[in-house]
């Protein structure tokens, strides 16, 4: 095994691994500061922040150090490489580099959105000199008026790491951003008339180590140190990007991609990044409702839950074959399992359908070439299937019912009068029924809608149960390739809205509170395709459901 | 003048007129004086602490006692649900009753020696001719603590219970030096009648004041009497830091007020006793001698006595705002290790003087000598009466430790 020595500590690396100094040092917990380097982008070694002392350990045990410093991001390591990151020489270099980077950087941290998560602040504190010796006026470049719909550029704060430029060239392939001018006049800009509006543009804000590129959506909304973060999964499409949900006082402010090589990598698309606004929409359902003859009878959970329970029991007794439940592919695995088992307990012949699976266009692959055609290797995919958990819900339904019924067939049966009672577990912010089809629901004797947003269907329902958006609940999403990831409750829902898992738990009178890890263990026993959930805690990266049996089960029908 | 008043009444009622008049005067004056003494104390403490004190009600706050009284009367009188109701209500009454009762044998002016009922002389004492006057006062005065114990016990509250236990322990301990300190007086005067002790002093003039014969007894009496009255620095039964309000934690409104009325009456009583027993009563050289017979001499005599009482009260009040409260073990130590032995020695000295027929003035240097001897004993390097704390020896850090105290 090749061994690298970092600050006198040996690091073993794999024989075929190709690591640079930064990655090798990370293995022993040594941080080599860097700005321009990003593991998903090409190496330019332009910021000079990662300069380290390097040397070779000869077979006879002597060490020969190189006289000059090397950029750690650009220098691969091999057996016997010696890296020193804490010598006076290196520290002086870091101080000098930071002083240079700060020469023209305005000290407007109070008004800068990046303050608190800024690479310059962090490294200045950790490695910097603490004061500047500059006597000349700072070179203040005017801010760009417009470089894109979602991003804004404060040119004066830029340290020219060019991460954003490389991102648009290598990951999105759209190459809108470029470096113009030379030397101290260097700045980031767009080509005239060609703004940076690709579907991955938001990522340059995350990539920017300073406050130069800011998200227009989040600009001046909150100071970042007030945000509380929870791990979650983007529900925008079946890619299932790992994300952080950043909220304060139950207001969601932004989503940020969380690096997960098993899921999507380090990025996320703008559709998901800015597509959460329905969480705070005005037409969120905030109170449970019970209706009879179009009149609202009750808005009280304590009264409505038993009423729903009784109504379902009666309906199941009256016509056990005319009883159906629809589970949206936006529901978590736990919710699907709770509802499916509950409905089947009431009526063993009840029909279980998956909600409508919304697809928009084709899978969108990145990077693209100048003509907009995808280029291999694919580095990022925006899936056409705009729901986060089709595979999870299908796995549950297949186990409990044997097959998955499409929503359209249920709708047909409803219009023919073959179904009298329908329980709908929604969650899709775009709705689960077309306006033209709403009239078909009139034939139902009982309609229970558990959903996020008010709709024509929820207006018809006898019972409306306000559920939680994905950021408001715990659970599991299974993405397109069978990776089960945990989502966590980041904020509380509006009004009396409750997490769907809790509603179903109370409705089915299951003992205990809704706890996703415990429920996952139960599901793993009951549903072999989801046996991988038996770990309970899925960790930050999620668990692939990749046993052979699970794989065959998960093949799209 | 008094004759005319008495003659207004039918014959059978006449013997009672003067005593009833005395009772009425004493009770009412006492009540009024108490409330203004409280104002005085508040003002005095304010001046000591560079404050203004009560100054909002009336000029210089002079109507403050009335406002306080009105407040106490109008406040909600809470009787908590968990108390023993009968005893709870009874306790403040007992306190006030006993302290006023003790005043019965205290002369507040030149008591006529040839007093017969109905002869038209104002008695200047409610119950004249009680030969056991001192014993009566001590007996009744220590009953006042009965009210405190009842109140604390009936409150059914741990702070109250602790407070009343402290009060009883304190009163039991300080009864002894209080009683012992006047044994010498009784022996010197061959009497326990307060009037007689006063008259004896007055007859001998300035040199006859008992302070010259019993200085040590005077100090012991004064300290023990303050402890009996639960005055700071001896008010451990109600110390706020540890016991909230002590025995009166659960009391409010006028019931609470009655307790403090009792305390103040007690203060007045002991001030009278100190002035009468040790400072010659109404005697003052030249202006109030036994032979003074000028017009208004009686008024002057009363004024002299009251001035002495007032001076003692002022001293008591100033002591309250000067000396911090004792710790309970210090309180007990003072009684049992200081006052009781000294009082015993004092009695012994009186016995020696009487037995060997020495001049009674010998008692002055002897008392001082006893006091000095006691002080010297306390400062002896060997300190035979002090408990030496065992200190850990250097280098034997893990040895047995006893907390120094």
């Amino acid at each position, binding site marked *: 095994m090749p061994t690298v020595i970092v600050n006198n500590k040996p690091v073993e690396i794999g024989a075929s691994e190709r690591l640079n100094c930064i990655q090798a040092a990370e293995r022993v917990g040594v941080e080599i500061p860097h700005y321009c380097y990003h593991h998903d982008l090409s190496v330019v070694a332009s910021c000079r922040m990662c300069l380290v002392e390097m040397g070779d350990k000869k077979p006879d045990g002597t060490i020969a150090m190189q006289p000059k410093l090397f950029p750690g991001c650009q220098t691969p390591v091999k057996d016997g490489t010696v890296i020193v990151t804490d010598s*006076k020489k290196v*520290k*002086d270099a870091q*101080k000098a580099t930071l002083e240079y980077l700060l020469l023209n950087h*305005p*000290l*407007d*941290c*109070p*008004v800068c959105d990046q*303050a608190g998560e800024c690479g310059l602040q962090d490294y200045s*504190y*950790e*490695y*910097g*000199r*603490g*004061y*500047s*010796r*500059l*006597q*000349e*006026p*700072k070179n*203040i470049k005017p801010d760009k*008026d417009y470089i894109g719909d979602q991003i804004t550029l*404060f040119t004066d704060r830029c340290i020219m790491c060019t991460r954003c430029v490389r991102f648009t060239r290598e990951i999105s392939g759209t190459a809108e951003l470029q470096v113009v001018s030379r030397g101290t006049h260097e700045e980031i800009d767009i080509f005239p008339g060609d703004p940076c509006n690709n579907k991955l543009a938001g990522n340059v804000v995350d990539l920017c180590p300073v406050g130069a590129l800011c998200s227009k959506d989040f*600009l*001046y*909304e909150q*100071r970042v*140190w*007030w945000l509380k973060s929870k791990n979650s999964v983007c529900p925008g499409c079946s890619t299932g990007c790992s994300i952080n949900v950043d909220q304060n006082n139950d207001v969601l402010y932004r989503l940020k991609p969380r690096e997960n090589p098993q899921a999507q990598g380090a990025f996320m698309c703008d559709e998901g990044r800015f597509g959460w606004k329905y969480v705070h929409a005005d037409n969120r359902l905030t109170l449970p409702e019970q209706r009879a003859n179009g009149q609202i009878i009750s808005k009280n959970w304590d009264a409505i839950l038993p009423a729903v329970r009784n109504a379902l029991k009666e309906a199941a007794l009256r016509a056990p074959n005319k009883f159906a439940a629809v589970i949206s592919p936006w529901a978590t695995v736990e919710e699907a399992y709770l509802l499916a088992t509950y409905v089947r307990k009431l009526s063993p012949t009840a029909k279980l359908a998956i909600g409508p699976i919304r697809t928009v266009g084709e899978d969108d692959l990145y990077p693209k070439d100048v003509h907009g055609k995808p280029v291999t290797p694919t580095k990022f995919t925006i899936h056409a299937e705009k729901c986060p958990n089709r595979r999870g819900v299908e796995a549950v339904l297949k186990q409990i019912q044997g097959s998955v019924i499409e929503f359209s067939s249920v709708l047909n049966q409803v219009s023919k009068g073959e179904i009298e009672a329908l329980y709908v577990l929604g969650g899709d912010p775009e709705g689960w029924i077309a306006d033209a089809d709403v009239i078909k629901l009139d034939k139902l004797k009982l309609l229970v809608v558990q959903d996020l947003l008010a709709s024509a269907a929820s207006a018809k329902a006898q019972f409306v149960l306000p559920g939680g958006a994905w950021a408001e609940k715990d659970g599991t999403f299974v993405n397109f390739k069978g990776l089960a990831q945990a989502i966590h409750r980041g904020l509380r829902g509006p009004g009396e809205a409750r997490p769907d898992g809790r509603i179903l738990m109370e409705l089915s009178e299951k003992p205990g509170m809704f706890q996703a890890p415990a429920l996952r263990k139960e599901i793993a026993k009951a549903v072999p395709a989801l046996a991988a959930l038996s770990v309970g805690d899925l960790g930050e990266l999620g668990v692939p459901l990749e046993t052979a049996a699970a794989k065959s089960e998960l093949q799209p029908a | 003048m008094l004759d005319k008043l008495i003659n207004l009444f039918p014959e059978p009622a006449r013997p009672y007129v003067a005593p009833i008049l005395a009772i009425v005067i004493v009770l009412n004056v006492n009540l009024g004086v108490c409330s203004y003494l409280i104002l005085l104390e508040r003002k*005095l403490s304010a*001046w*000591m*602490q*560079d*404050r*203004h004190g009560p100054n909002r009600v009336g000029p210089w706050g002079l109507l403050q006692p009335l406002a306080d009284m009105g407040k106490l009367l109008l406040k909600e009188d809470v009787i908590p649900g968990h108390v023993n109701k009968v005893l709870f209500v009874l306790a403040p009454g007992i306190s006030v009753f006993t302290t006023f009762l003790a005043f019965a044998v205290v002369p507040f002016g030149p008591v006529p020696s040839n007093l017969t009922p109905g002869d038209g002389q104002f008695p200047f004492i409610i119950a004249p001719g009680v030969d056991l006057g001192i014993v009566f006062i001590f007996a009744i005065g220590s009953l006042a603590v009965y009210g405190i114990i009842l109140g604390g016990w009936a409150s059914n509250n741990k702070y109250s219970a602790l407070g009343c236990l402290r009060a009883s322990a304190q009163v039991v301990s300080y009864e002894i030096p209080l009683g012992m300190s006047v044994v010498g007086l009784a022996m010197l005067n061959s009497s326990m009648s307060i009037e007689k002790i006063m008259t004896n002093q007055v007859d001998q003039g300035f040199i006859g004041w008992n302070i010259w014969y019993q200085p040590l007894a005077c100090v012991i009496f004064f300290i023990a009497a303050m402890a009996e009255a639960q005055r700071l620095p001896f008010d451990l039964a109600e110390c706020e830091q540890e016991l909230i309000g002590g025995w009166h934690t659960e009391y409010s409104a006028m019931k609470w007020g009655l307790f403090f009325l009792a305390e103040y009456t007690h203060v007045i009583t002991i001030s009278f006793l100190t002035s009468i027993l040790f400072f010659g009563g109404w005697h003052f050289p030249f202006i109030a001698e036994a032979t003074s017979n000028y017009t208004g001499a009686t008024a002057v005599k009363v004024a002299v006595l009251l001035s002495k009482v007032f001076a003692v009260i002022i001293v008591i009040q*100033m*002591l309250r*705002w*000067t*000396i911090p409260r004792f710790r309970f073990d210090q309180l007990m130590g003072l009684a049992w290790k200081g006052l009781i032995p000294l009082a015993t020695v004092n009695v012994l000295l009186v016995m020696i003087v009487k037995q060997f027929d020495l001049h009674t003035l010998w008692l002055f240097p002897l008392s001082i000598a006893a*006091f000095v001897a*006691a*002080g*010297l004993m*306390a*400062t002896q*390097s060997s*300190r035979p009466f002090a408990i030496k*704390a065992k200190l*850990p020896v250097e280098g034997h*850090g*893990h040895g047995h*430790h006893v907390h*120094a105290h």
Partner: protein
Amino acid sequence: MPINPKDVDWVEEPPMNFWEATFLPAVVDGLRATGHHVTHFKPVTQMYPEEAADLPRHYRGVHRLNRDDAGRVKCVACMMCATACPARCIDIVAQEAPKDDPKWADRDKLPNSFVIDELKCIYCGMCEEACPVDAIELTHIYDLTGMSRQEMLFDKEKLLSVFDQTKDSGLDPIRTHKGRLGPASDFQQLPTLGPATTVVGDDRSAKAASPGVIK
């Protein structure tokens, strides 16, 4: 954790001398001290409602939001005060400075609304300490009254009016310089003045061959 006996200093009370043992001098001394206060009565009480209170120079009263020379609100909505506030009584909503308005050309961010709940505030002065542009200050106004809780929520206009009211009082600009913007908001002039961070003459880390990291 029990205290190590080695760490305990055992102290014995010092032996008393003769006079101390009698306690009399101590009592007399005490009476003399308390009596002296009675006879030489100099009250420290201020008769507040009748006479105006004589406040110390560092008194912290009602807040104000300062204006710069152009009359704009000095605050840059960095929310440092809200972050520092232990009572959480400051609520700021920021907005982007109007780009086309030349009046705001040199500013990126300003407060859209700035509300201080004067009832929640504990007047600790942390907001003043935290402010990087010397925009928020506590004034000498102490007689703060209102008829409703709503009235005690001071918004931006009200806070600016407090500034207008107190700027010439002579008492209030004692802590920060009045008029000019603080160092963070007028960064464009800053570099000509010298090092961004003032280096104190006797700062050893500045003199060292390899200046140390200031932690």
